[in-house]
């Protein structure tokens, strides 16, 4: 009996040691620099609040820590969509002026491989910018660093929250250089075939209610020729 208890204690200790080594493994850190950062093409930036309460509408399965809002919105409880969340939000241009609307569908991805530091989400942005046009951004996002650096510390802290400065690119594909796909639909974006990267800057997180202060940023590469210069575009 004594040896069995010792074996079990060793087993539990081993699992804890492995979990700590896994979380501290520097090889699983995501790239902080996207390939768009060194691109010579023009880029358009759209930013938004990543706090659900700031969105026009947000819904999920109703059991997650982030509550759907408005309160009366339909929840995604069916088995096929219970790992999905939908956000409708205002997208601002580089000066912080409302530029349009974005609808984001995000589902937990079966490409998730925690062993390799990948906590993936398959997401699609449906973007409409009045008087300019529309496009979609399809991407695979990796939230492993976000979970490791923010969600787990917030869950383990006595106050059940996290505060700090955290910024990282979330986009991890499907482009070979870790970029998302952009497909134009209408207006000046009709026929657009380009790349995009989404990044997140978090400042506060609650283990009970999710992001408290966080901003998302979509950086979309535009072809060099044939586009109108606008104040919201960055050279």
């Amino acid at each position, binding site marked *: 009996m*004594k040896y069995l208890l*010792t*074996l079990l*204690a*060793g*087993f*539990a*200790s*081993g*699992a*804890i*040691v*492995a*979990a700590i080594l*896994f979380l501290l493994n520097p090889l699983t850190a995501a790239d902080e620099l996207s390939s768009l950062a060194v691109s010579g093409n023009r880029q358009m930036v759209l930013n938004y609040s990543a706090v659900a309460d700031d969105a*026009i*509408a947000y819904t999920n399965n109703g059991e997650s820590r982030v509550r759907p809002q*408005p*309160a*009366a*919105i*339909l929840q*995604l409880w*069916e088995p*096929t*969509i*219970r*790992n*999905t969340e*939908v956000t*409708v939000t*205002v997208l601002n241009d580089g000066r912080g002026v*409302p530029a349009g*609307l974005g*609808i984001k*569908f995000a*589902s*937990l991805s*079966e490409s*998730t*491989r*925690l062993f390799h530091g990948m*906590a*993936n989400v*398959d997401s*699609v942005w*449906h973007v*409409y910018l*009045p*008087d300019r*046009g*529309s496009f*979609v951004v*399809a991407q695979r996002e990796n939230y492993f660093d976000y979970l490791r650096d923010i969600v787990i510390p917030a869950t383990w802290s006595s106050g059940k929250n996290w505060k700090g400065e955290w910024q990282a690119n979330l986009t991890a594909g*499907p482009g070979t250089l870790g970029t998302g*796909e952009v*497909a134009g*639909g*209408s*207006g000046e974006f009709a026929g657009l075939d380009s790349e995009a990267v989404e990044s997140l800057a978090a400042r506060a997180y609650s283990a009970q209610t999710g992001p408290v202060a966080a901003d998302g940023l979509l950086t979309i590469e535009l072809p060099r020729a044939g586009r109108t210069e606008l104040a919201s575009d960055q050279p």
Partner: protein
Amino acid sequence: MPVVVKTFIAGLILGIAAFTGALYAIPAVDQHRENSIISVRTNGGNVERYRVSVPVDRIMIGAGGIANPVPVDLEWPEGDRFENVNVELFKLRNERDTVIGVASRVAAGSRSGEPVIEWVLHLPARGSVYATMSSEAGAGGVRTGSLRHGTREFSAIAGALAERWVPAAGDAGNGRIELEASFVRLGEDE
């Protein structure tokens, strides 16, 4: 070395191996799947039909100046920019009436050009489809459009999407939206 220490070390190694093995082998995400209902077209390609029951499947409808937004407490952003934009979110069903995904429909009037009507269909276990529709509905109230982009299972495809509003008997406000997607994999016969 005492036997108890050897036992603890053996347990430690087993624990590390078990945790690592479980992390490597056990899938962290397993999306629920429904069997696809696909018809094969005689001239090549596949057809899938989806439906949306209104108002049961309507998650959201927001637009400038709308009298009855869904949900009722929805706050639409102010400003001219958002007045002519209509955004709807739906749950998407297959022909067996099982929810298989979510969808967005954006309809917007343009000051300078053609009205915009678009769909994004998001099926978590399979991928997403983006389609732009024509501004005018054709015979039988069928509006057609073309697929602009697809992800995962729907990547490398071309095709068309058709939408049709079927009102419920005796109630023009309720009914269902029928969507028919025609997929042709690029590189095959079109």
